[in-house]
């Protein structure tokens, strides 16, 4: 027997704390780039995302990656991020036809013809990480909050499942996880970005239509992007302080 008691306790404790896959992934975190994790200071960062509508090809990689990374229920169709397809009759931006079959998880089967007098494009959606979030304001118990580094997070152990925030979000970004009856939403992959990785959706976006940015890092390319593009946030009239900036956003997008 070359296992002593200390070794046994350490091993079983680790196994109890982190189940199978989690333990392996934990070792991956210890191995790779994210060893900067212990040095992460929330006050040094202010996270945002840019989405270039003109680059989105509607492949659904982000939707699949997000569900994989964040253990989002596959059915009945909950999403932390999803992709919408807009079909806008020429000049009639008041009446776009919008669809999002399974959130774009399986891609978008062709349903329009070119030359039908309308324009079509994809718009990826996710939590806008508002600096003045309506969802945070309505939470009666402080179970959802804006973190010091600008990410709207959920405290699952403290959430009552009252659904006020689901109604308050103007972007429809929240859902109740049927397994826990608590709210869930995009956390901007907080477990990744605080370890030096990008979000799962940005990692897997083949055209770099979505890019994570740190507004407090003067060297981050997001500054160049925001300076050189005409960007817009969703529903600016709601004054939510959204930090998800869209380039090439059509007026028909709600």
């Amino acid at each position, binding site marked *: 027997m070359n296992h002593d008691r200390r070794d046994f306790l350490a091993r079983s404790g680790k196994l109890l704390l982190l189940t199978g896959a989690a333990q392996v992934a934990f070792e991956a975190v210890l191995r790779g780039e994210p060893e900067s994790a212990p040095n992460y200071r929330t006050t040094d960062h202010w996270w945002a995302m840019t989405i270039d509508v003109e680059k989105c090809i509607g492949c659904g990689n982000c939707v699949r990656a997000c569900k994989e*990374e964040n253990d989002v229920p596959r059915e009945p169709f909950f999403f932390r991020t999803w992709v919408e397809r807009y079909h806008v009759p020429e000049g009639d931006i008041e009446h776009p036809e919008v669809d999002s079959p399974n959130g774009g998880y399986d891609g978008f089967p062709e349903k329009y013809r070119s030359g039908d007098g309308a324009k079509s494009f994809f718009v990826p959606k996710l939590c806008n990480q508002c600096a003045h979030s309506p969802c945070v304001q309505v939470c009666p118990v402080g179970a959802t909050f804006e973190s010091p580094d600008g990410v709207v997070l959920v405290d699952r152990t403290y959430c009552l499942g009252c659904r006020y925030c689901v109604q308050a979000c103007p972007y429809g970004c929240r859902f109740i996880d049927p397994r826990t009856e608590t709210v869930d939403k995009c956390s901007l992959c907080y477990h990744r970005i605080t370890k030096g990785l990008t979000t799962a959706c940005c*990692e897997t976006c*083949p055209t770099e239509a979505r890019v994570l940015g740190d507004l407090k890092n003067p060297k981050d390319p997001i500054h160049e992007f925001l300076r050189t593009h005409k960007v817009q946030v969703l529903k600016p009239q709601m004054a939510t302080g959204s930090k998800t900036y869209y380039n090439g956003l059509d007026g028909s997008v709600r």
Partner: protein
Amino acid sequence: MSALFGHKEHLVRMAALFGVGVVAFLILQALLVPKGFGVYGHYRAGALEENRARPIAFAGRAACVECHSDVPEAAKGGRHAGIRCEACHGPLGAHAGDPTEKKAVRPDSKVLCARCHAANVARPARFPQVDPAEHSGGEACTTCHKAHNPLAPGQAGQPGLAPGQAGQPGGMETGGAK
């Protein structure tokens, strides 16, 4: 004056009752308000750490390249050079943690390539798109194209081809893949 302080025991009783109320409130507050609540704001400070504790599924390109440095070399200068590994190969954090644990599966090119390159009017017009059935007739895309550096067939590997040329609509069809 004596009328005001003549019955001191009334005041003492009220003060004692008030004191008991304050103590009861402090005890209840200590019991009911979770640890760390209010440190950064109207939430539990520990929730930040809990949100960070989730396991990672996608290892990230840097981890992949540590061992598979030949792939970015092959993709260099090509149209797929900017795409991160796990965009096509799927989440491989487990593999990065222990390479013997979970092997990467070679994706089926007929399914994978079509996800991005099947013609769709909602896709940006300048993005290379084909009708897979008409373009290859059910043949696997990798028969003609290199997945990591997919220039048009016949042009593959030619360093002189400008990226703009390869990216023209239909640019991938010109090589006669049919």
